[in-house]
């Protein structure tokens, strides 16, 4: 059995350093701001700057990873004698996975003995990161690429993603969520509670009054849905609102004694569309 490399993309919101530790490769989606013509990746700008620019009114637009970037990486891996397991950002939110799939199709012809497997995580942000980390654990336990891929497929729809945002204007602008005006009404004081559904789309589920209420609502979802509330692996990502992330983490600890394993920034892939003040919670639950 050949060794295989797990590959993901920057939609996973896990830093390059951490991924290196995990032995996972990553390629980045890119973004641009309306105000300048530079193509950035998550590495080229500190997150605080990114969100500050958004708050200042600059509009950020993201672009998927393109096929050649994946082809290059996958080919290198194959040439080094390893297989590729790509776990990618939700197709409901980006075409990145598609680029990878095309790259795989091409390379499979060129290297028929290599195993190139792709899994559409239907996940986003640290939810994808969570899935990747669990698959990597499986790999470390000795799973083959087929077993790891199967595990990923079975697990992916149990990775719960719960989001709230501070200001709905970014979501509406980004068009990644389709809230009707009727659902959201006036934005003042209304905070949405959203999740990523089984199709990998970001869907509003409820609206609550006030930021704090939205944070508590996310904790409520955890209490309801987490498989083992006291011992779940929990990731939190935030759009430059670390105090709120800590409030949420504190609430989970208070209710269930669970420690949040990872608190990370919501990267630009999601952040460009959900805006500063995004807060997201990820855990393995009974169902999304």
């Amino acid at each position, binding site marked *: 059995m050949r060794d295989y490399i797990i590959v993901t993309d920057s939609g996973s919101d896990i830093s390059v350093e951490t991924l290196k530790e995990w032995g996972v490769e990553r390629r980045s989606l890119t973004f641009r701001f309306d105000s300048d013509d530079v193509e950035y990746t998550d590495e080229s700008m500190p997150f605080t700057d990114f969100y500050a620019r958004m708050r200042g009114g600059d509009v950020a637009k993201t672009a998927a990873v393109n096929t050649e970037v994946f082809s290059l990486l996958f080919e290198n891996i194959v040439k080094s004698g390893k297989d590729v397991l790509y776990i990618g950002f939700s197709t409901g939110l980006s075409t990145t996975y598609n680029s990878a799939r095309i790259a795989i199709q091409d390379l499979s012809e060129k290297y028929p003995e290599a195993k190139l497997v792709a899994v559409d995580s239907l996940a986003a942000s640290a939810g994808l990161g969570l899935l990747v980390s669990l698959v990597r654990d499986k790999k470390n336990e000795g799973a083959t690429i087929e077993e790891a891929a199967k595990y990923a497929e079975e697990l992916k729809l149990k990775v719960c993603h719960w989001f709230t945002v501070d200001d709905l204007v970014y979501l509406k602008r980004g068009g990644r969520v389709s809230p009707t005006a009727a659902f959201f*009404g006036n934005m003042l004081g*209304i905070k949405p509670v959203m999740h990523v559904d089984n199709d990998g789309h970001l869907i509003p589920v409820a609206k609550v*009054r*006030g*930021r704090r209420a939205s944070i508590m609502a996310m904790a409520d979802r955890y209490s309801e849905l987490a498989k083992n509330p006291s011992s779940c692996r929990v990731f939190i990502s935030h759009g430059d609102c670390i105090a709120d992330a800590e409030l949420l983490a504190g609430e989970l600890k208070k209710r269930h004694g669970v420690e949040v394993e990872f608190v990370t920034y919501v990267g630009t892939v999601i952040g460009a569309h959900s805006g500063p003040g995004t807060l997201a919670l990820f855990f393995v639950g009974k169902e999304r």
Partner: protein
Amino acid sequence: MALKDKIKGDKAKRAEKTDAKKSVSKKKSPAKHSSHTEEKAEGASRRKLNIKYLGGLLFGKMARSGALELESNADEVNKLNVFPVPDGDTGDNMRMTIESGIRAIENVDSDNLADVMKALSHGMLLGARGNSGVILSQFFAGTAKGLSSKRADPATLGHALEMGVKQAYSSVMTPTEGTILTVAREAVQYAVRRINEKSTIHSFFADLVREMHRSLEKTPEALPALKEAGVVDSGGAGLFYIMDGFYRVLNGEEVADTKDTGKQNEEKTAHAPTSFGFNENSEMTYGYCTELLVQLQRSKCEPEKFDINALLDFLSGIGDSIVAFQNDSIVKIHVHTFTPELIIAHMRKFGEFLTVKIENMSVQHTELKDDKKISETKPQSDSEPAPVNTQAATDNSDEVIKAEKKRYAAVAVSLGDGLEKLFTELGCDVVIRGGQTQNPSTNDFIDAFKKISAEHIFVFPNNGNIVMAAGQAADMYEDARVHVIPTKSVGTGYVALSCLDFTAEDVDVIIEGMNEAISRATPGYVSPSIRDANLNGIEIKNGDTIGIVGKEIVVSDANRMNATRALASHMLSLEGKYLLTVFVGIDATDEDRAALEQFIAESYPDVEVYFIDGGQEIYPFIFVAE
């Protein structure tokens, strides 16, 4: 000055007047009425008093007199507030309620008591405003049920009034003693007890009014709040004046039989009788009802491939009440929108128009709707808004595209421009202007409902004194299921409305969600004080600014901002408050607002605060804390 003093004064004055006319002395306590033996000694002009039966013509006169009597004393009744705030104008509300009834009997020239009473009570039901107005209308409605023949003797009258009392009590969620209910009940009980074979209509009313006055004087004993404020109950006082007016006619006192009862005082319901009701100052409240028949053109598009779903998406972005479908190469469209030009421009990319109909829904047509319930009171006087039915008005083509009834709609009562805009943005279909000094009537609500085509209508009265009128309208309206969400402040109304999920399936779930949000919201406001008072242990001076949380006065201060800050502190110190919404009125200056903002940021940094330009009069700041 306490009402009772004034009442005694009135009686004394009247006693003097009649003294001058007749030789009968009324040396007894002015509040008591002379026995009818003395009156039998009167001359021809008093013959009426011995009548045993009350007919429609006399009753009509009595009713008009009742309305006039209340009108003369409405200000006095208005001032009988427990809270020294300029609100709940009971006198005006009750006056307008009964005047609505008087207008309804204007051209009823019948001696049939049942007919007159029915018309009177129906007019009152529709014109009911304010809680006391609604209770008054229910009292009359119940009484009408017991007056089903051409005339009535004292016993029949008594029995009918007992039914009136019963209906009044059952119209209130939690009947409280020491209010109009008590005054009505005790008076009717007393007068009925004293009926004997010698009773006449006059003696019956004499007893009724006498006991009503006594009962009114006792209301502070039953309601500590009245005692503390040093007033008698305003609703009871209003009822007393009305009944006293009724009685005066029987006493031979001339009623100024003018037919323009209070029309000059009618405030906002009268529109200048233009044929459109939409002039250079009007606002587009309801958009255009737009119906188009489009012939898709091969020169512009492929008619077979026309994407009706994309069209529906487009339409939902610019309006509602949407119907669109395609038959071969013709597309039929119906939408309510403020921007009909957008759909015209859009469709011209695909074809040309066969028919175009665009109607301004804010224009009030003066056609009467064919609805028996509403048009029973004939004729519509010009100060009653003509029933508007925009759907009926557009139903004049054979190829009718009936606007589908949408599932949910909302009606809210607002206090100012800013609030009206806000409620509209939140999804309200109709916003009624009203509030403290101008409570909308039952009919105002019904008119609002008629502008909407929906299965369920949610109503947000946003004022404790409007809830009942809304409820009455809900009971009377048959073209939709109307649910009154009992919001007692614009703050809680805002909270409830912002939680209304127009996309949800189950009505009960929606209502529960809103009620739940309301239960966690605490309303408050600051208001100028219109008199001295000592309430809740707080010393209040006329001209102070008082702060009220829920139904309690918590602070009074000569300095408006001190009072406002104190109120904010009080509210934010309550358990679990993290979100404060502040509605800024026109009496608050920019400096006031900035000062408040700063105060909250410094003293309560963890609280999320939103300022909204409410534009309300009188109350500089209205709060809701969650």
